[in-house]
């Protein structure tokens, strides 16, 4: 009792093809996620299984048989679908709505049998909708309706489950609940193909992910292999920090900036001295504003380092928890000497990164000090505070608010 969903060189679309030559296999027991920008054809791929989109070349197979060769009612016994939206304009009771999923398994004559009632009850229990049974569906919230629609699909007792943005209307709790249910169904042998917009959820629940973009379906692979900053930049046009979900350890995507948000270059070179995440927002802001940004020395794993990497901002790399060596400091000094402006953030400074401050010490007139360095952020026995006030005395421009940083940088750059 397990069926595989297989796309074999399938070109699918409506009047014209949307996705060309798609090849993908969704095996019993796995969740395969489809990701990609809006309009790329993820939904079209899903809809081609149920005949709503046309298969123009190649094949789409369920349990080894071309989907076009199935009668609708046969296919509905194998494949359940949770579409993006389900209109519920008439006031059926929620339970009646779920019972409609049994249509393909009932005879034309007679009503619901005990097997039907059991399947409906189970589907409603799994989707946490039992309490809604008597509520008219046209009064339900989008999230309740989405879970009921999943219940409707599950009451079909399908072997292949197609989910199109299964959690788009759901709150955080129900999002996890629904995906946990789907995970459980997959573990029991269902083949699941799901369209995801939430990449973190995709990484967390899918066994494999496949990117749909530019009219193609790219080869499916593990979330770690697919969710790279390069893919996000190429496919979504977003610079992002790829991290690890601190709870599950799965890939987590933190978008930093949209590629097209970047202003054209101002031809102004800016060195940013920061650390421990103090400069992350600043780096993004300056890059978007069109400055040619470089960073001082940053330790691997530091938040500022991840953001700088995602933005293609050059920096002097330090090993994790490592200290700046003499050559690191002179590299920063070298950058500083060529920079039109230097921004120094009120970041925690200690022996490991104090060299950054020393490196810019003699360029006070071209420096903007962002914020105020508090004594408790000086882990260098007063040395950081001393260097900071030396910059102030040397004529550095004080900037209190990161929102006015563009003007401050332009001001010192024109000195």
């Amino acid at each position, binding site marked *: 009792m397990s069926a595989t969903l297989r796309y074999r060189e399938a070109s699918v679309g409506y009047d014209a093809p949307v996705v060309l030559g798609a090849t993908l296999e969704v095996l019993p027991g796995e969740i395969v996620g489809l990701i990609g920008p809006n309009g790329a054809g993820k939904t079209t791929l899903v*809809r081609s299984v*149920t*005949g*709503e989109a046309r298969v123009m070349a190649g094949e789409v197979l369920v349990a080894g048989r071309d989907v076009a060769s199935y*009668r*609708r*009612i046969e*296919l*509905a*016994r194998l*494949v*359940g*679908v949770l*579409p993006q939206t*389900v*209109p*519920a*304009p*008439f*006031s*059926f*009771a929620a339970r*009646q709505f779920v019972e*409609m*999923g049994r*249509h*393909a398994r*009932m005879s*034309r*004559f007679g*009503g*619901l049998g005990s097997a039907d009632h059991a399947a409906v009850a189970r589907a409603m229990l799994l989707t946490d909708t039992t309490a809604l049974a008597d509520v008219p569906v*046209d009064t339900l919230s989008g999230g309740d309706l989405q879970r009921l629609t999943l219940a*409707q*699909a599950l009451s*079909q007792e399908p072997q292949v489950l197609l989910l199109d943005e299964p959690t788009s209307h759901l709150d955080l709790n129900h999002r996890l609940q629904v995906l946990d249910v789907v995970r459980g169904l997959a573990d029991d042998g269902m083949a699941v193909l799901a369209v995801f917009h939430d990449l973190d959820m995709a990484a967390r629940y899918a066994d494999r992910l496949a990117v749909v973009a530019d009219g193609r379906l790219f080869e499916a692979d593990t979330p770690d292999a697919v969710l790279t900053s390069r893919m996000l930049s190429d496919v979504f046009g977003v610079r992002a920090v790829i991290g690890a979900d601190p709870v599950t350890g799965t890939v987590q995507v933190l978008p930093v900036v949209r590629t097209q948000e970047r202003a054209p270059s101002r031809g102004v070179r800016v060195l940013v001295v920061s650390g421990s995440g103090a400069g992350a927002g600043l780096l993004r802001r300056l890059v978007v504003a069109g400055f040619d940004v470089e960073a001082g020395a940053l330790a691997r794993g530091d938040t500022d380092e991840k953001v700088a990497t995602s933005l293609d901002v050059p920096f002097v790399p330090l090993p994790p928890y490592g200290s700046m060596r003499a050559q690191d400091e002179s590299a920063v000094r070298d950058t500083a000497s060529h920079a039109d402006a230097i921004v120094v953030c009120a970041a925690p400074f200690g022996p490991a990164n104090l060299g950054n401050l020393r490196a810019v010490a003699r360029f006070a007139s071209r420096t903007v000090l962002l914020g105020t360095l508090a004594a408790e952020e000086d882990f260098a026995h007063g040395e950081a505070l001393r260097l900071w006030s030396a910059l102030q005395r040397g004529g550095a421009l004080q900037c209190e608010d990161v929102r006015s940083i563009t003007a401050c940088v332009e001001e010192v750059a024109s000195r």
Partner: protein
Amino acid sequence: MTSSGRMRAIVVLGALVAALAVAFVAGAAFGAVPVAPAEVVRALARALRGLALSPEQAVIMELRMPRVLLAALVGACLAGAGVLYQALFRNALADPYILGVSSGAGLGAALALAIGGLGTISLFAVPVSAFLGAMATIVVVAAIATRRRVMDTLSLLLAGVAVSYTLSALTSFVLVVRREQMSRIVFWMMGGLQAATWQQVAIVAGMLAVGLAVPLFFTRELNIILLGDERAGELGVDVERFKRIVLAAASLLVSAAVSVSGLIGFVGLMTPHMARLVLGPDHRLLLPASVLSGAVVMVLADLVARVVLAPVELPVGIVTALAGGPVFVWLLLRSRTGRA
């Protein structure tokens, strides 16, 4: 259906059957010459047993009974067609005449009256011609709306409007050309049951049986189709085949009604709508209940048409439209402020 739902269905349908029986007796008893309701029952009983009838009982059986039965059948057909069209268009305010059936039947009847003109030929020619006009209209409209073997409901509506206007223009043309027949044609279009015969009763009953029996096997699909063509397909409904079956059944019903009664408005729109408001959207109950309600409404409307200006008869279409129009407006206003 749950067991409590089944109980409710039995109660509702039982009550409607009882109401229909009362309406039958009332419809046969009242008229230009009133008779006692008991006499109606007695006449029925004697006729059923094949016993000889008194002159008064013969009047009841030969004039009143066919008329009342035909009224019930026409009402049932219109309401049944209304339910089916409303499901097909997923719109609780869809009307049996929505696809231009009325214009097609009108043109058919007008042609028969204009050409036949005199004598007994038109007695059969008019209903047959109206029926053919109605069916032909739907076939044309459905053909226009079908592309790549898919019948699009929006195209169906638009094609219905376009075809309907064209046919109305042709009917007007016939009216102008055969001005001497104008009053008969216009009178036919107003809708009425004056010429009811047992023969008509038998024919319409046959069409009602076919046009209703088929959809009664498809009540589950009628429910599911309300979720949209796409979802219905995902749940295992062969949507295109189903739409054709429903369209054919609904068209048979409405054509049968129109052919013997002319254009009687609002029964096919209002009755299913009201039934849905009271009973909910489940077609397993809605379809039979609407059909029975349509029969009751029509028998009563015809009764009103006969007695209100007695001995002059009003076309029953005027009664249903006068009562139905304002109710429809009220429903519209109500659905704008709250739920339909």
